């Protein structure tokens, strides 16, 4: 595989040449070594759920059943549900951490404050809590308690966080299908039970359980995590920063925050500022923090911390030889980081009790001691800086200016500069008159099986040229940032005429002195909930359902189980959801056909759409948007 087949990111291309010269193994080498990958696993027709197995189904004949009698459809559906339970568990666990932190703050036991009291009030009001005469601590405790009920509801009633925010039409649809979740933990547990040996064999029933997992992910994972994190750390506002490995500084102590949960990374950023003097005493010009994956997105959105690189670049960041310390929390952290770090001087520090890596140092994180731990980690980075071998340092000259921080609140605020009384009107009018054809959210990962960033960038350029407004989160936002698409200059360069006019009008009214970027960075993977909020608000405004909007979602290079559970939430919301790599479901025509077919669309309004060619995918999405426009009569 040539360097150009591995990545379109110029910094990553340079670093790939360096790792080759340094004899360092990366994710692409390991993918090569894994070839050929198992066809049974690829199709999803391998079952390891009991000790009578492992069983495989022969797609061309016998055996057509596992030892227990499960056929391909049962096995594929069960495996998918387990994948979704994994992805959902990750987001729900993330949200739970944030809720615990809020509770600890309310009790006065955490080293954090509440930064957005307005959002706390708004959430409390929406939850039907009494806000009058309650101080911030009391209100925070009440909201945290209500959030915890998402995990402690032992009745058949629907999960509170979903009931409070889901549109009525969606609630009715989900109730009719019997997929309303009761309690996030209970549903994840039930999915594990349902898929264990000798329980559910009905692929349709299993797929309905998949929809339920999607709803748990969307509301008890994404939405809950974003809401509580905004309360604690503040709701993002447009902010300028930079992206790609060129943000590392040769004369600074370079600290990278990697993972997903901002509880520690926020503190690390704070302590990097506080210990600048110590770094200078150690001979550095200062301390530079940069992010990888979604913990990077979290501190970018709220503090403008620059981005080092996305998922596939994590090893390459270490290969610059300029990273003195990489602190990781949970999710998407390659265990290989410890091996790569050994070839350079940088230290890997793990922090979460469920995420330890052989070869990394572990500094356990806690809400109460977060300051002390962050201080310790930054001091380690300064110490590590002194060990840096200047001969091994090569920082690519690649960095790109970006604008991020587009929370739902920030978008509404920008729009209110155009129309203060009716902020959504200018956006809805632009959609109605066709200046904006529709909107697409590109989200999710990199996957070593696809050229890094290529699907994201190719697809989005096609979409914005056709006047489709794009919002992005996660590693997709990184990919688009590196390609220059998160900058206002890209509007003139890549956006269609209609989209350009709208972005310029809003940008100028909002006092940006130019257009908004053609791609709005809405945050981390859990911040996909912001996109959900925006769509619900637009649908409400138009008096239609989310499923009727001229919109689509896309994970152009999905890798993680989380991408599947987010995608399932999007489908459940009624949205056409494109995936650029097929999940392991093709071994069952019943499952694959249902997920992508008319039946699911008639029931939920959304469906999955698999297309590996990014240009064809953009065409398919535009066709879908046009069909939705026709149905709306616009």
């Amino acid at each position, binding site marked *: 595989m040539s360097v150009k087949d591995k990545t379109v990111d110029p910094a990553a291309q340079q670093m790939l040449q360096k790792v080759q010269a340094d004899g360092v193994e990366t994710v692409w080498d390991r993918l090569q070594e894994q070839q*050929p990958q*198992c*066809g*049974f696993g*690829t*199709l999803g027709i391998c079952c390891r759920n009991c000790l009578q197995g492992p069983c*495989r189904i*022969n*797609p*061309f*004949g016998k055996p057509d059943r596992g030892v227990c009698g499960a056929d391909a459809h049962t096995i594929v559906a069960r495996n998918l549900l387990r994948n979704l339970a994994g992805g959902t568990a990750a987001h729900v666990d993330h949200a739970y951490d944030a809720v615990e932190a809020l509770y600890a703050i309310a009790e006065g036991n955490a080293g954090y404050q509440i930064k957005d009291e307005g959002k706390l009030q708004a959430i409390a009001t929406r939850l039907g809590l009494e806000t009058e005469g309650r101080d911030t601590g009391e209100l925070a405790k009440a909201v945290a308690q209500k959030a915890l009920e998402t995990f402690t509801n032992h009745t058949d009633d629907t999960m509170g966080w979903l009931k409070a925010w889901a549109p009525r039409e969606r609630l009715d649809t989900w109730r009719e299908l019997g997929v309303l979740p009761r309690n996030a933990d209970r549903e994840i547990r039930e999915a594990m039970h349902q898929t264990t040996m000798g329980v559910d064999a009905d692929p349709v029933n299993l797929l309905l359980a998949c929809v339920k997992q999607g709803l748990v992910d969307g509301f008890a994972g994404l939405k809950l995590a974003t809401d509580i994190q905004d309360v604690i750390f503040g709701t993002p506002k447009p902010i300028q920063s930079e992206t790609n490995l060129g943000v590392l500084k040769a004369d600074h102590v370079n600290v990278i925050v990697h993972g997903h949960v901002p509880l520690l990374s926020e503190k690390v950023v704070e302590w990097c500022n506080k210990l600048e003097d110590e770094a200078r005493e150690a001979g550095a010009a200062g301390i530079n923090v940069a992010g990888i994956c979604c913990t990077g997105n979290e501190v970018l959105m709220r503090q403008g911390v620059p981005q080092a690189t996305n998922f596939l670049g994590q090893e390459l960041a270490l290969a610059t030889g300029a990273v003195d310390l990489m602190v990781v929390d949970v999710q998407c952290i390659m265990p290989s980081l410890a091996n790569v770090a050994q070839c350079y001087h940088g230290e890997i520090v793990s922090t979460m009790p469920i995420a330890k890596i052989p070869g990394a140092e572990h500094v356990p994180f806690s809400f109460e001691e977060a300051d002390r731990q962050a201080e310790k980690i930054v001091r380690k980075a300064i110490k590590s800086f002194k060990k840096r071998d200047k001969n091994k340092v090569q920082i690519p000259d690649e960095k790109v200016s970006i604008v991020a921080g587009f929370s739902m609140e920030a978008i509404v605020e920008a729009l209110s500069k155009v129309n203060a009384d009716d902020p959504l009107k200018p956006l809805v009018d632009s959609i109605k008159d066709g200046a904006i054809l529709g909107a697409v959210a590109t989200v999710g990962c990199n996957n070593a099986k696809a050229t890094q960033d290529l699907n994201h960038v190719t697809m989005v350029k096609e979409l914005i040229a056709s006047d489709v407004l794009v919002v992005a989160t996660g590693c997709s936002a990184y990919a688009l940032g590196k390609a220059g698409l998160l900058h206002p200059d890209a509007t003139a360069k890549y956006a269609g005429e209609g989209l350009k006019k709208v972005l310029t009008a809003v940008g100028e009214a909002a006092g940006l002195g130019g257009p908004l970027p053609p791609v709005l960075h809405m945050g981390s993977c859990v911040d996909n909930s912001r996109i959900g909020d925006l769509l619900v608000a637009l649908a409400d405004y138009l008096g239609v359902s989310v499923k009727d909007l001229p919109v689509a979602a896309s994970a152009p290079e999905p890798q993680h189980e989380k991408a599947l559970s987010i995608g399932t939430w999007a489908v459940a919301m009624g949205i056409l959801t494109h995936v650029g790599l*097929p999940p392991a479901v*093709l*071994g069952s*025509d019943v499952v*694959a056909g249902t997920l992508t077919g008319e039946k699911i669309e008639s029931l939920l309004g959304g469906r999955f759409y698999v297309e590996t060619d990014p240009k064809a995918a953009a065409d398919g999405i535009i066709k879908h948007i046009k069909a939705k426009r026709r149905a709306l009569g616009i």
Partner: protein
Amino acid sequence: MQQLLIDPDRCLGCHSCELACAVEHALSKDLFAAVLNKESSAASIFVETDGETNLPLQCRHCQEPACANACMSGALQRDAETGKVLFNRDRCVGCWMCVMACPFGAIEQDRGQKVISKCDRCPDREVPACAGACPTGAIKFVEIAEYSSDRRKRYLTEFVKER
């Protein structure tokens, strides 16, 4: 000439060779397309086991093929140039003599059940699909000299260990 040689110690019984063989002999020769389009196909390699040892077996393409000797219609013939025992289905009369003659059980009935089916050693591929799909290197497509040299080295290692 490269031969398909098996190292049973390395076979984990994953059946990837069988899947790859069936895909290679499907119309599209592509896993996703073959499954999505429901193309009919079957493997000509068989992973057998006695509970302890797994052995992937396919036609050995013998120098003196018992199957061809038993074939009365000339449907099975050894090609001197390639060393392959080739099957001409148009000439097969379905007498199953070859099935009885093959000591390895490498000949099966075709899906239509009128003629036989056997390994053609992948005429469109440099490395047969089964060897290409084997994740542990249990199925090798190598010169006999290379295989035997490896065997001798392994014997030496064991010999030294036991002394």
